[in-house]
């Protein structure tokens, strides 16, 4: 196994596991950032430069911050020593293991194990941009609309409701 890949896989997995298992929510969020960064590095390994940096820009720069803010905003009124796992966590874990097993079996039994390694593609940002502006222009527009709608929706949902005259 490639040592770089092994390191990154380990980092990512460790970050992911820590992100869902730590007690302190902020630590969870920070570990999630580690996992995201590891994924971005994996993308770079896979020659997807632009996607890798976009991953950092969006996930580390925006989503992680959002999560952190949400954590800070939803903290405080709960007692400290509650169990961190939900009431039916055994069943949930069982299902998760089942899904993992199923996916593992599926990958292991598939022909991709014997898939040839093709020469590394070198997609330039320009090519991506041209694709976006030609073949994918409709999805691009739709996603722009979606982002706008989501932003407005998020603002409205999270906005404080007007109190009556005090």
């Amino acid at each position, binding site marked *: 196994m490639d040592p770089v890949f092994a390191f990154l896989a380990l980092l990512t*997995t460790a970050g992911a596991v820590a992100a869902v298992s730590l007690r302190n929510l902020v630590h969870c969020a920070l570990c999630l950032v580690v996992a995201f960064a590891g994924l971005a590095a994996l993308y770079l*390994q896979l020659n997807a430069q*632009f996607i890798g940096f976009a991953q950092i820009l969006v996930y580390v720069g925006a989503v992680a911050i959002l999560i952190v803010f949400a954590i800070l*905003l939803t903290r405080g009124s709960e007692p400290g020593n509650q169990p961190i796992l939900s009431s039916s966590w055994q069943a*949930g874990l069982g299902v998760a293991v089942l899904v993992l097993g199923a996916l*593992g079996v599926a*990958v292991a039994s598939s022909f991709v194990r014997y898939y040839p390694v093709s020469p590394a593609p070198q997609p330039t940002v320009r090519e991506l941009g041209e694709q976006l502006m030609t073949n994918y222009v409709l999805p691009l527009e739709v996603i722009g609309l*979606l982002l706008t709608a989501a932003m407005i929706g998020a603002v409205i949902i*999270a906005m404080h409701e007007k109190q009556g005259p005090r």
Partner: protein
Amino acid sequence: MTPLHQYLFLSALLFGVGLAGALTRRNAIIVLIGIELMLNAANLNFIAFWRFSRHPELATGLMFVLFSIGIAAAEAAVGLALIIAIYRHYRTANLDQFDSMKG
């Protein structure tokens, strides 16, 4: 060069971890984190398949991931806003207590 199936295993592992987090934790934010992890696992799959595809110049996988990242950002924003709104209502982020849709 790392073969494809290793990426796929890693992706499956990440997906499993994310799913486990989403299914076992009480805190809504951690559930959201788990969902983000699953989404990223899928993204990794796409990138890996693109890298090993016969026509990488078509950039299909890249495009898909690009849009997926955009949607994930929207999803995170709306999801967190919902969590905050719900928190403001129930004064808790504990998923076990959100059951007003109980049949």
